């Protein structure tokens, strides 16, 4: 299997006002693989994740230099349609954030705003997305019940289903299991294994074991810089940089 680069990041710098949050980031994110971003709090990994679907646009004084190429299209160029970008690069947040609507409406929300009105089509997308997020069997009898009544783990998988419904290529996950119990966490980790067959996944995690379990590649961030990126096995068995080793062996962070 040939490793194709899905997202290529070229000397990316990000500033919040005078503060430089990301320093000269270079990275290749490989298609249909799970890439984990690890590092201590405040090292810029979440900020970096949010540059990949331009969620940082929401922050008033954030400024970006450099290039992020998604299938060779610079997502910060004028040619890039923000709506299309966010449709093809989905995001799952740290805290499950289903809308205060029914389970069905949550999943149908994305397709609806992108213009799908037919009920039968929506039904089909909802079922497919919920199945994709391994949630269908648990909620198929309560599609019209409020999503906020689901358990935390179910809510997070619902958020994943909500992303899948707009048919993205890439899934960005910002510590998706940090608010969940171990069993829900395990379910989501199993799900990632399934999802990477069809999607490219980038996951921020604080949990070293999780990075080891789920990811193919790992990037270690420190103070806004990438210290090293490698196959996850290499990072954990023979890190090249002393700082990486210190971090993964729990000496700081």
């Amino acid at each position, binding site marked *: 299997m040939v490793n194709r680069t899905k997202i290529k990041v070229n000397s990316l710098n990000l500033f919040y006002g005078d503060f430089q949050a990301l320093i000269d980031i270079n990275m290749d994110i490989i298609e249909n693989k799970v890439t984990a971003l690890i590092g201590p709090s405040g090292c810029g990994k979440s900020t970096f994740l949010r540059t990949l679907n331009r*969620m940082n646009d929401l922050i*008033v004084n954030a400024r970006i230099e450099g290039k992020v190429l998604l299938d060779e299209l610079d997502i910060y160029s004028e040619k890039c349609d923000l709506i299309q970008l*966010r449709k093809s690069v989905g995001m799952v947040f740290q805290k499950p954030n289903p*809308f*205060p*609507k029914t389970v069905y409406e949550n999943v149908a929300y994305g397709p609806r*705003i992108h213009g799908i009105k037919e009920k039968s089509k929506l039904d089909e997308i909802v079922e497919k997305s919920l199945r994709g997020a391994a949630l269908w069997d648990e909620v198929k009898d309560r599609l019209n019940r409020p999503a906020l009544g689901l358990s935390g783990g179910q809510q997070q998988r619902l958020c994943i289903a909500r992303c899948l419904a707009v048919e993205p290529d890439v899934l960005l996950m910002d510590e998706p299991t940090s608010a969940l119990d171990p069993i829900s966490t395990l379910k989501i980790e199993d799900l990632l294994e399934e999802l990477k067959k069809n999607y490219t996944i980038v996951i921020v995690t604080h949990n070293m074991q999780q990075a080891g379990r789920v990811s193919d590649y790992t990037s270690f961030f420190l103070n806004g810089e990438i210290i090293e990126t490698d196959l996850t096995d290499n990072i954990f068995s023979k890190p090249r940089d002393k700082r990486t080793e210190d971090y993964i062996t729990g000496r700081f962070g």
Partner: protein
Amino acid sequence: MVEMGMSKIITTNKKMKINIKEKLWYFFIYLSALFTLIALLSIIGYILMNGAKHIHWEFFVKEPSSMGREGGIFSIIVGTLYLTLVSIVIATPIGVAGAIYLTEYAKENRLVRIIRFGTETLAGIPSIIFGLFGFVFFVVFLGFRWSILSGGLTLAMMILPTLLRATEESLKTVPQSYREGSLALGATKWQTIMKVVLPSSVSGILTGLILGIGRAVGETAAVMLTAGSSLGLPKSIMDPARTMSVHLYLLASEGLSKEKTFATATVLVIFVVIINCFANILANKYMKKTKVES
């Protein structure tokens, strides 16, 4: 041993003193709280006791005759509903849209601070001033005469600040994560506001709206100056009308009929109580919802 015993007794005495003080204060604040309830119940009770016996179904469906001494208050109920409806139809879109601008779009700058300050000032202006302005501007200058339109516009200005503030507060309680979730799916800002933010704050907006209605229904001075005090059944928005509060004021101040005064007061009080209960239910529902979310 004895000394130790003494000191113990002294402490207990001190404690008792503190205890009595605490209890006195407790009793005082308890009484104050109770007083509010007593005040409310005695007003409603007094009105109901004097008014309920004068209310027959005819009172609701008959039109008043001989200046309100005889007959019912049909045209007045219609006038009240009509005027209230017009005022909220005018105020709601402006209030909600203004609140959306202030919370979702405006950056914290001087203009926004001035708008906020203006809203608060507007809420604090005595209603008679609104009445005077409405009279000079809508009734005379724009030539709307004494009419439901003039009255509705005046009342709309009066309830606008309440509505805008309530909507603003309720938009602010919508978690940022909802907005992010929607935007991350490729929704535009406007779609996000219309399909996620507003629906999540609907009960808060309704609560503000109902409080506004309460203010409109209870208003006397401003309404008399702008909608007039005609007893006839209003047939169009350009007709003058009399609301229950105005009717009550005129009946009482001109000593026309004690019976009808209390009967009208009863209907008005029931009206206001129903509106407030409704607001309460909505507010509770709203609070429950935010609790689940947090």
